């Protein structure tokens, strides 16, 4: 499990890659939190587009980041959450925290490096 972090001002997108379980959650948590704190982030977006698997460790990860952003007076949003991941999130009531975005179709976005000329 790895994470790609992009920061623009107070905005940060953390793109989670691979499986989220108890094994990977700690490293994810540490990477995300340290980037949020050093970058003084107020709007955190967790992108689930490339998450292949998630169990309740992912719920702990989301709830922990939700609390962190609340403490910082910021917001958390979850984007590109596929159906099978959403099932576990809804079970945990994460949708009631109103952070769960509508899932978008699983479609790879064109790579930025390729530019507009393709």
């Amino acid at each position, binding site marked *: 499990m790895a994470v790609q972090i992009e920061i623009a001002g107070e905005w940060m997108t953390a793109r989670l890659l691979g499986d989220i379980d108890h094994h990977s959650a700690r490293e994810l948590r540490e990477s995300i939190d340290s980037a949020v704190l050093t970058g003084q982030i107020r709007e955190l977006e967790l992108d689930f587009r490339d998450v292949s698997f998630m169990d309740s460790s992912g719920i702990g990860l989301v709830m922990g980041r939700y609390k962190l952003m609340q403490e910082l007076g910021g917001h958390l949003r979850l984007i590109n959450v596929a159906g099978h991941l959403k099932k576990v999130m809804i079970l*945990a009531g994460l949708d009631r925290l109103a952070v769960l975005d509508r899932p978008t179709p699983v479609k790879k976005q064109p790579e930025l490096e390729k530019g507009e000329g393709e």
Partner: protein
Amino acid sequence: MKALNTMKLQFEGRSVNEGFSRTAVAAFLAQLDPTVEEVSDVKTAVSEAVTNCIVHAYRDSLGIVYITAGILPDNRVVIKIRDKGCGIPDVKKAMEPLFTTAPEEERAGLGFAVMESLMDRVKVTSQEGKGTTVVLTRKIRGKEAGV
């Protein structure tokens, strides 16, 4: 009911094996031609049970996690996850949603709730100081069912 096919797996309770064990069970399940959703449900439930062994049962030690799985003639899969760890003093309480003894690790306390919602049946037996056994049962309808 006698199983048509069975498998046994045992591994050290290291967190890196969480991924290995759920993937191994999913691979065993493949012979039933399950749907993507069924595979995902079973993997998630197995991951919860194995994580419990590692986080709770073997909290202060390194122990062995034992998994057996069987396929019954009516397409039910029965997966038994067993440890020889500390045991659960109050199983009923442990199964309550949001109950956790490891909040510092950001454990949400939803492991059993997730297992119960994804499986047809979850049976937990535990003895303090001896260990815990979780039996997960799920009927696999498979792609043939044409959901």
